[in-house]
């Protein structure tokens, strides 16, 4: 269904989404970025991450509602559907590295969270 839309992955714009404190500490919140559901997370060091909100296993837009934690020090979110863990840094599933969710560039400027271009996986 996305084929009819212009390709957003090349955008170089930064879209202001919310204030940092609207992303709960060590938890997530959903945002609508260029028509797509994006999950924003904040880890214990106040690092902010932007992942697709859609869990690829459940095919449901729910990741922002998952529990955020660490596995061997690596911040991750557990899908609220069936608990698959996704690394916040790059969206890769820690139990199955062949699966990853899209991630976006994200930064905090003056207390505002800005989402940039969708990243292309390495």
């Amino acid at each position, binding site marked *: 269904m996305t084929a009819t839309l212009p390709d957003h992955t090349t955008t170089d714009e930064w879209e202001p989404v919310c204030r940092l404190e609207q992303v709960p500490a*060590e938890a997530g919140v959903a945002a609508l970025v*260029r*028509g797509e559901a994006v999950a924003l997370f904040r880890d214990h060091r106040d690092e902010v991450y932007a992942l697709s909100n859609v869990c690829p296993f459940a095919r449901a837009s729910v990741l922002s*509602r998952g529990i*955020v934690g660490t596995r061997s020090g690596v911040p991750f979110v557990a899908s609220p559907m069936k608990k698959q863990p996704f690394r916040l840094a790059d969206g890769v599933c820690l139990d199955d590295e062949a699966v990853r969710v899209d991630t976006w560039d994200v930064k905090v400027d003056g207390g505002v969270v800005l989402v940039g271009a969708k990243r292309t996986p390495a």
Partner: protein
Amino acid sequence: MSNRQRLVVVGHGMVGHRFVQAAVERGLTDTFDVVILGEEPRAAYDRVALTSYFSATCAEELSLLPGGSYDHDAVELRISTEVVSLDRAARTVTARDKVTGTETVLGYDQLVLATGAAPFVPPVPGREHDGVFVYRTIEDLDAIREASHTATSGIVIGGGLLGLEAANALVQLGLQTHVVEMAPRLMPVQLDQAGGSTLVRHIEKLGVNVHAGVMTQEITAGETGSVDGLQLKDSYKIDAQVVVFSAGVRPRDVLGRESGLEIAERGGILVDDQCHTSDERIWAIGECAAPAGRMYGLVAPGYDMAEVVADALLDGPGRFTGADMSTKLKLLGVDVASFGDAFATTEGSLELVYSDAVAGVYKKLVVTEDGTRLLGGILVGDAAAYGILRPMVATSTNPGIALPENPEELILPASRGGSTGGGVAALPDEAQICSCNNVSKGDIVHAVEDGCEDVASVKSCTNAGTTCGSCVTSVKAIIEDHFAKTGREVSKALCEHFAISRAELFEVVKIHGYTTFEAVLEAHGTGRGCDICKPTVASVLASQFNEHVLGGTHAGLQDTNDAYLANIQKNGSYSVVPRIPGGEVTPEGLIVIGEVARDFGLYTKITGGQRIDMFGARMEDLPAIWGRLVDAGFESGHAYGKSLRTVKSCVGSEWCRYGVQESVSMAIRLELRYRGLRSPHKLKGGVSGCARECAEARGKDFGVIATDKGWNLYVGGNGGMNPAHAQLLAGDLDDETLISYLDRFLMYYVRMADRLQRTAPWIDSLEGGLDRVKAVVVDDVLGLGSELEESMERHVATYEDEWAATLADPQKLERFVSFVNAPGTPDPNITFTTERDQIRPENHAGPVVLGTTIPVGASR
């Protein structure tokens, strides 16, 4: 390198692969270059688990050699390569590449034939039609799957072990499945008539039609040449579009025959007890071989032969002296085992039989005339005793293990005086636990002593349980038994962040009075927590302090259901269940629920717990939905929590002409008392007004059944995956004693149980089981009674309706938005269609971008 010799292996099935593994492990590769020629288009795979191919995501999952090559320079595997001839005089084989058609002549110094067996297709007229298959390779399964797309029913010809596996495959493919067997019963080689009949009853319950004692006359075809059915001799015709032959296998001994090797009378290349053929440079192993004239159609003897040949090539003393043909497997979900002299052919042998036709269990032991030795047996429907029984079996070469005084206890159910578990402890070290890979109890104990701590690592160290898996329970029991004997602690760590168990967490929270996850983590944990410890600590805190689950810093700890006080469904929408205590609801209440469901466009369904579930609510609509419900006097039903769900009741003595106590009042009283109690897992109760038990209370964690003198209290019942009947804790109680016992029981469980451990397994896990619960709850041996009751009183006194409290607090409501930057925009990923006049979720292949679909969600 001229002194290096070449070893050619023909066939890369399970046995060929095992031989190569042994050759590498034992250093045959120091003197030999090994070339393996495999006919199939892929490396060896687990043929025993062939049926699981349909549930596997790819063929690779079954592979015994992931990656497709051996990690050794001297070993070369060529797949899709068939050997077309063998020239013994020139010591060469001619191999044909099945892809390119090129033929290569390959010399050998030693040749190992592991060509396996081929399915036997009896000469039934019509067997050449389209839609007729055999069941042996992944390619066969692919073809059957393809044909099943246009078929509605299928027939398996042959009701043996493999035939039933094939039937399982057809069932999985959604076909109406028939099994046709010439013998008067299923698995005629392994089971007697009574065992076979028990198996038939199980299998027919799964919708498989069994036609035993019938002869096939002709496979019929329609005008297109495709199968349309099977005509039975002097009998009826079965319609089907798929026919699978599974009438046994025949050794693939053609290379041996054509090259003049000695062949056994009933087929198979004749070999001696070192698996040597009549040519000193040629060996045969697995199903193509016939040691002492007999062919073995199981993988375990094939593995033994592979080891024997590897040994012989190193001048070792290994001999193949016959094999244990014991079988234990799960066929279509039914446990079946047959071992030793199952048919009591030994002179003077006696049979001990336990049969429960209702439960579908048949067990038979064959013992010696004096009852001291076990000769064999058959188990259908419950084969749990197999692990203990099989090593006891006496054979001509092995005296086995002496039977206990009352051997019938080995097959009686535990409730009738039979022994449960514990059996492995009595086994000697040499007892074979895994017959597929010949692993003894001693091997497993050594592995544990060498540092294997769980089933997974024992499996990878010893290979035990890696082929058919039937011994895994025994492996686990041996590990636990060994830990218990050596006084070693089995790790109770909750997760990587907490080295202590849930019960210990409960204690430290109680003693230190921590009120936040942060405080518990700082004092007793490491890292930042995860999806296991966060909800566990949240539950422990809630059980003790009963603060709102969305209050303070608790929200981020909750599983998503608790986090939004509703039950998440597959498309990310939620369902809503208001509490209806005891299942009693006024017409006005029903009307409100109906109106709310209608106004928010929700799907409604009656639950099993006498309430009404409304599905398809968008997260951002939950506060508005609950606003209406709370206004009408409804409270949260905690359907989303690991907490009390419902107390189900029958209609009781006020209406029912049989009732002896007022079950509805009692159910409401109990439900209102324990509502909101956070526990290790969900809790359900039931109250029945008489012994007819219409509330099904004994299927609940706590069940109360009226007597003419008061109430009987049962605990530890469970529906779900592992059903259990609740057991009597105390009888003829008055109302107040009933409640004090229940307070104690529930609080004791909340304190002691592991995370996600329901009451039935929790009681089982206590030393002494139900007797221990009785001692603590009824006899108060720990003197905890009043403390437990006080804890419950505190819970009751601090209860508040979570939804009413949420609606009253703007901060808690902040989280109920679809998007932080577009709170009014519904998530485009959630859409619905209509079925039977109600909504149902629509599936999406991937993320949906706003603008590409028009959401047709709940009307507002």
